[in-house]
């Protein structure tokens, strides 16, 4: 290794530890903002890496491996760590492993540490959370422990950055030592027996090195808080209140920045189209790329808001309690106690909701949660629901004492929820998993949240969404733009010619004319033709080709339905729903002469939008979060099929 002092060396530094040992905090303290987030190849387990400079000639590539209790993996996360440690992925670099241990729970941490020692790894033990040890009135004889294990040991309190400097120094000074095996290897020994022998040896060592004076104060306090927060009745009220706060944050507080982003992009788009000469390129830039970018960035406030809450819940230890309280109920549907957060956030927007399913460590339960979340009625459905309900239900109609419009709105939300859990209940028997079915979860002690960690979580989540899902969204949005802006042959030129004269004449209302022209163009476009082409297929649902076009264009996002309808019915201002409503109300089927938007069609269309996966951002994020297009496509087909069937039945029933 020694090639003189001038040579520069990069070592590989792996952070390993139990869940809740404060490993991420150590990682954040080591790397600062110098970190990248990606996935481990082939799986959807978050991989955090960062570079640090230890001395002018020594750098380290730090990799934060998923938390694990042992080297006998039971979940996808743990398997990643296992694979990483058992195969040498050092790329010729020197490798040092820092085991981050919860010092107040040493027995558990040392098991993993001892397994690594027996793999003949270069290990440094970071004893984190020393403050809790103090609170518990325990004391650890670090020197003795270090000698017994034959390891460098650094006492730390990473939350306040204590021990980080010493850890870095220990990495710089690290020297290989020849070590006796922690437990003598026995060929063909069962995992159980091996773990048992390790546990016994650890117990012996700890008897010599750890002294306890009094009651464990920190865990006592946690128990007291648990009496309140997980109380049979009170606990649920508190949980409901927190859910309500999250919902508010994602649903309404995010609205202000979202409106600003939306208006900003419209302004920017207009600016570009005014500055640049009228051309295909300008159109692509404005309606394809800028609109697409706007459609991505608009999600940032909701993602930031949701993950701020999740990071706080996770950091304080409350997330595990939510899991504890909800697990009994959700388990029956193949879900996890933690599924409640994605399911509820799904009512605001499925995209951050699906991203939040990462906190579920069981792969099957996470997949089911991701699969059913888009069935929950999200806020993008509201404009569609509002327009259609107003269209087919008179505002004075009542059901008993209730306003019928309100009842229908609520029924749609309820329907989405029922469809979601029913789907999960059925699907749980079809999805097979090689993961352990045991579900043992540690409940960490309650601690104050670390705002730095919250910040890092938000930044990382937003980055992942922008750069991973963003690519897919931009691609789909350009395809949709081409489909609705181009038509086969010279159909567009003909329309241009037809209107050219009229538009130039001053006496004719140019605005109406322009609106009619864009309506005709949309109908002549590929999307328009496709809408007409699928009309026979959607007739049984009570839809005409105009609705067909809107269904195609609103694959971008559900609310696009309203905008497309406005274009087709030549209503200039898409926000002016009253005039759109009037035009739609008066629309008649040219074949039968009957009204298009009867109650049957309206209900059928409402049901369609409740179920169909009309959202490219969701498709993109599902593909990303499940690490395959397989589940994204199954989801589109399943929800589309469900929507078709349900709309068909609805239409047939009401007509």
């Amino acid at each position, binding site marked *: 290794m020694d090639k003189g002092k001038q040579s520069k060396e990069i070592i590989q530094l792996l952070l390993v530890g139990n869940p809740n040992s404060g490993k991420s905090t150590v990682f954040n303290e080591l790397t600062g903002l110098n970190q990248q987030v990606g996935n481990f190849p082939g799986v959807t387990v978050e991989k955090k890496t960062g570079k640090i400079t230890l001395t002018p000639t020594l750098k380290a590539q730090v990799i934060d491996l998923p938390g694990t*209790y*042992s080297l*006998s993996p*039971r979940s996808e996360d743990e398997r990643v760590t296992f694979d990483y440690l058992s195969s040498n992925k050092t790329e010729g670099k020197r490798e040092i492993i820092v085991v981050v241990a919860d010092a*107040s*729970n040493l*027995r*558990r941490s040392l*098991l*993993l540490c001892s397994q690594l020692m027996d793999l003949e790894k270069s290990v440094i033990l970071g004893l984190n959370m020393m403050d809790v040890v103090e609170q*518990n009135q325990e004391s650890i004889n670090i020197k003795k422990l270090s000698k017994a294990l034959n390891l460098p040991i650094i006492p730390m309190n990473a939350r306040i950055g204590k021990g980080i400097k010493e850890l870095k120094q220990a990495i710089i000074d690290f020297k290989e030592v020849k070590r006796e095996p922690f437990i003598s290897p026995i060929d063909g020994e*069962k*995992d*159980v027996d091996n*773990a*048992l022998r390790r*546990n016994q040896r650890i117990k012996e060592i700890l008897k010599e090195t750890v002294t306890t004076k009094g009651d*464990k104060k920190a*865990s006592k306090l*946690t*128990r007291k808080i*648990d009496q309140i927060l*997980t109380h*049979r009745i009170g606990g*649920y009220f508190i949980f409901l209140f927190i859910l309500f706060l999250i919902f508010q944050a994602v649903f309404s507080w995010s609205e202000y920045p979202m409106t600003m982003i939306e208006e900003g992009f419209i302004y920017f788009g207009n600016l570009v189209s005014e500055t640049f000469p009228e051309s295909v390129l300008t159109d692509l830039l404005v309606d394809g790329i800028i609109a697409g970018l706007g459609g991505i960035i608009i999600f940032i406030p909701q993602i930031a808001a949701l993950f701020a809450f999740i990071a706080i819940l996770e950091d304080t230890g409350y997330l*595990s309690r939510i*899991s*504890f*309280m909800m*697990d*009994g*109920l959700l*388990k029956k549907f193949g879900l996890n106690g933690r599924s409640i957060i994605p399911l509820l956030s799904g009512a605001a927007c499925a995209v951050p909701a699906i991203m939040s399913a990462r906190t579920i460590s069981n792969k099957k339960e996470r997949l089911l949660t991701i699969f059913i979340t888009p069935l929950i009625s999200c806020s993008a459905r509201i404009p569609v629901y509002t327009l259609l309900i107003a269209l087919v239900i008179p505002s004075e109609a009542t059901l008993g004492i209730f306003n019928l419009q309100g009842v229908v709105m609520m029924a749609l939300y309820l329907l989405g929820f029922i469809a979601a859990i029913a789907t999960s209940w059925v699907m749980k028997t079809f999805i097979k998993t090689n993961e*352990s*079915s*045991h*579900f*043992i*979860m*540690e*409940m*960490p*002690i309650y601690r104050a949240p670390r705002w730095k960690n919250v910040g890092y979580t938000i930044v990382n989540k937003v980055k992942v969404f922008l750069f991973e899902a963003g690519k897919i969204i931009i691609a789909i949005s350009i395809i949709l733009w081409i489909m609705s802006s181009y038509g086969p042959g010279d159909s567009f030129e003909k329309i241009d010619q037809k209107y050219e004269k009229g538009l130039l004449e001053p006496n004719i209302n140019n605005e109406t004319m322009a609106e009619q022209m864009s309506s005709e163009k949309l109908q002549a476009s590929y999307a328009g033709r496709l809408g007409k082409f699928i009309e026979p297929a959607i007739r049984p649902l009570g839809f005409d080709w105009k609705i067909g076009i809107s269904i195609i264009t609103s694959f971008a996002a559900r609310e696009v339905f309203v905008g497309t309808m406005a274009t087709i019915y030549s209503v200039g201002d898409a926000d002016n729903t009253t005039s759109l409503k009037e035009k739609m109300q008066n629309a008649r089927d040219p074949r039968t002469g009957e009204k298009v938007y009867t109650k049957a069609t309206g209900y059928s269309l409402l049901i369609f939008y409740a179920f169909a996966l009309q959202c490219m951002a969701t498709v993109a994020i599902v593909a990303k979060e499940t690490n395959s297009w397989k589940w994204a496509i199954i989801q589109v087909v399943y929800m589309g099929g469900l929507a078709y069937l349900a709309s068909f039945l609805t239409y047939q029933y009401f007509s």
Partner: protein
Amino acid sequence: MSQTIPLSEAKKGDLVTIESIHNESLSVQLLCMGCMVGEEILIEQIAPLGDPMMISIDGALLSLRIDDAKEINVLTQKEKRG
């Protein structure tokens, strides 16, 4: 008088000792989390729907589904504390 029961039948506040674990993979997992035969467990809470249960062992809190708790035989020690 102490008797052997599945952990799933223990009540809130019970202090019990692990006697045997039937399922091998469960047993490995529990060992890795610091639970081994002969260890004392305190039943801290049982979730309102009767599942899962929260236990504490050597100062650490764990949540355990009832299905898993059925596989663990424990020896009852004392009646309800407090």
